[in-house]
């Protein structure tokens, strides 16, 4: 018989052992899938996971992909600790990109040191408002924030589509659904001579450090964690659940919006109908891969960013469909959730007693 029983003592490294097991299982399953396609797993894995990082271009691309994942992952980690399930970071990102991009287009051709901060502010506010909607509905009507924030994602994506097909369309763009290219003052500088890595990555690192500080030292972080752990005890301590819901969703919305405007001004350089390959959803995996520790979001974000590059490499060099990215990410989340059981429980083989 196999038993699952609660651990008497849990140690901090149990969490990371669970993560390690999840990674090993993911790679093993990916290998099995590759082998079933008639490919040699070892050389294939080398080609899709290692070779993309062999150049400055590759690393720069990796940082570009990791930027939104880390930025949003930090904010989601804070919210998830509070037990507020903001699943709509993708929509908040899109809203941030749209609002920030609209500001950039409104000041098109205008130079000045204040233009870029204004654009970033616009994007942040856009995401903030999009996060405030599920927060309000949750606090006022106890509407489930998972459903509301998720559904608002599709509203945001359609809103972006309407805007780039209509008012924000490039007047000289032959009716393509794209905006004008942003001018230099509205573009974030690149980090390297090659690839798309941009200043946003530095912001992402700063968010991770700030997030760690909030969790470790700020009363707000403690309050949110306590509310997530035990609403009853939080109430006795004098903490308000409503405040936690508001803070979690406002932080999530604002930071995701920031990630969105950084993505359009740093990476894409204009507004297009599709500004994110589901970064907002993938950041959920990143947050859990990091076990909701803001600092650990950095390696987790880099690893998951690698899965995007790996998907592209798999498509180019092995001829596997691009959907392999999602397969890889799905496997990772699946094993992460599965192995998280091992943190508080252990598996024992034997008899009762």
């Amino acid at each position, binding site marked *: 018989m196999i038993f699952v029983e609660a651990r008497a*003592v849990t140690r901090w490294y149990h969490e990371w052992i669970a993560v390690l097991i999840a990674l090993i299982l993911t790679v093993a399953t990916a290998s099995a899938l590759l082998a079933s396609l008639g490919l040699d797993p070892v050389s294939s894995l080398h080609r899709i996971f290692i070779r993309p990082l062999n150049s400055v271009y590759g690393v720069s691309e990796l940082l570009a992909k990791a930027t939104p994942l880390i930025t949003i992952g930090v904010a989601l980690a804070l919210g998830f600790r509070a037990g507020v399930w903001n699943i709509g970071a993708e929509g908040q990102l899109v809203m941030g990109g749209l609002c920030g991009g609209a500001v950039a287009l409104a000041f098109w051709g205008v130079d000045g040191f204040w233009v870029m901060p204004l654009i970033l502010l616009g994007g942040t506010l856009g995401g903030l408002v999009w996060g405030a909607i599920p927060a309000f509905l949750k606090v006022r009507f106890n509407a489930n924030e998972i459903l509301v924030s998720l559904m608002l994602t599709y509203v945001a994506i359609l809103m972006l589509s309407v805007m780039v097909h209509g008012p924000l369309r490039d007047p000289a763009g032959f009716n393509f659904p794209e905006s004008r290219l942003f001018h230099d003052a509205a573009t974030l500088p690149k980090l390297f001579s090659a690839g798309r890595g941009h200043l946003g990555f530095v912001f992402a690192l700063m968010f991770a450090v700030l997030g760690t500080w909030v969790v470790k*030292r*700020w*009363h*707000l972080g*403690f309050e949110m964690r*306590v509310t997530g*752990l*035990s609403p*009853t*005890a939080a*109430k*006795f*301590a*004098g903490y308000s659940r409503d405040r936690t819901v508001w803070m979690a969703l406002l932080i999530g919305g604002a930071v995701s919006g920031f990630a969105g405007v950084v993505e359009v001004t740093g990476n894409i350089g204009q507004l297009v109908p599709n500004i994110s390959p589901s970064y907002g959803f993938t950041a959920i995996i990143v947050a859990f891969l990091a076990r909701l520790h803001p600092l650990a979001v950095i390696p987790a974000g880099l690893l998951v960013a690698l899965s995007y590059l790996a998907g592209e490499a798999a498509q180019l060099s092995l001829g596997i469909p691009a959907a392999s990215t999602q397969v890889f990410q799905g496997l990772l989340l699946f094993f992460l959730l599965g192995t998280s059981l091992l943190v508080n429980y252990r598996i024992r083989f034997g008899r009762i007693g």
Partner: protein
Amino acid sequence: MTESVAIAERLSASSKQCLGVRGLSKYFGDFAANRDVTLSVDAGEIHALLGENGAGKSTLVKMIYGILKPDTGSMELLAKPYSPDSPSDAKHSGVGMVFQHFAVFDALTVLENIALGLEGRFPDEILAAEIAEVCDRYRLHVELNRRVHDLGAGERQRVEIIRVLMQDPRLLILDEPTSVLTPQETEQLFTTLDRLSDEGRSIIYISHKLDEVRALCDRATLMRAGQVVDVVDPRQESTRSLGEKMIGERLTETKRSKVSSAEKHKARLTVRVGDVYPESTRNVVLNDVYLSVAPGSILGISGVSGNGQDTLFDLLSGELTLPNPDSIVLDGEPIAHFGVEKRRFLGLLGAPENRLGHAAIPELTLWENVILTARHTRGILKNDHLISGTSAKAFADEVIKTFDVRTPSLNAKASSLSGGNLQKFLIGRELLGQPKVFVVSNPTWGVDAKAQLFIHQMLMKMADEGASVILISQDIDELLSVTDRICAICHGRLSRTFPTDEMTPEHLGALMLGQEIDS
């Protein structure tokens, strides 16, 4: 009736004694939950198991039902040795149990729920017909196709009883079955139980409602502190004599010095309010709450669990606020509209009954748990935003040293402490904040005797230093030895308040059963 007679004949084929328990003991660590317990239940007998909370009744029936294994002693069922390894073992041997908290699935129908409790049965028409027969025989009315979440407590209990009766038990154990029932439902239950006993089935009836036991039971085994103290015929006893036997001699050694008469008449905290509706519908609504407590005195609020104590605690702690500020007055200041934090600033501190998950968070360390309620003292919170780990740790360390909390370190999780040590830590956490009013609910629940004494001393020390203490408790010994004045809560109503000196256990028992609370 002929059917009953037939069943009675079949059952009486066995010997007269149904269950015999000899020398049963059960230890939890050093604590003897049951010591050398002997119990005999005859066929067709309704046998009461009487005792206060913590007297060992539940431990005993858990052993009979196979949930716990006795450390020593033996049992006999229908003249055969009986030692169940599990509840399903007990069921197969003919023992059925109806728990106080029903194990029914809300989303399923009555029929489905009953089928789930029976091995290898399906919720089909054959089963429905059998159930209908049982319901008819024992006058248990319930609609089989209704979903359980639509049912009231009495109906849910009937579902449980039917489920147990479908297994044709020889011995039926009922754990405080009437605690959730209306008087009419109680009547119905008694009819059913009489019927079962007429058929020769035995019933163990756990209760602390003395008048019910006198009305229903043939014999009563009285338990106190894990031991059997007497076996009596409840019909030959008065409620008063039963109460005395149940509660036994009082310990008066911890009696405290009297409050000076000048202080006695000043009220530090006064609560005066009509109806109070709790946020959770599971908690009891309070009606006409009036209480007042003087500086330096301890007010006891007794009552059977689930009579509104949770709502009362929330009302006092500020987890439940009222629109009219004047409903609660602390030192002349209306505070009923203030939340927890503001009340704490004014010196109203507390310790709720549920230590893990209400007073403290099990997953957090001791020093982190300090931040929950003591963050505004000793610079734990800097500029209202930053937490000083050093100050919080220093505070936790002081609590641990001052109140002799046994813990490996400040970094131990709250869940790793024993009940008594955690309670000392939690009360100590508030005591260092120098409360003006301290509200505490069942502080010694599940706490060993030594820690219990220590906690009582902490409460008395608090009062001696001038605090007003409100002690909500189910423990009659505790209330009579620690408090200055005492009242009872029953169905959300408070009784009059009496000086503890003039209070007798019988009188208190009557108050707890709501006998002097007029509506």
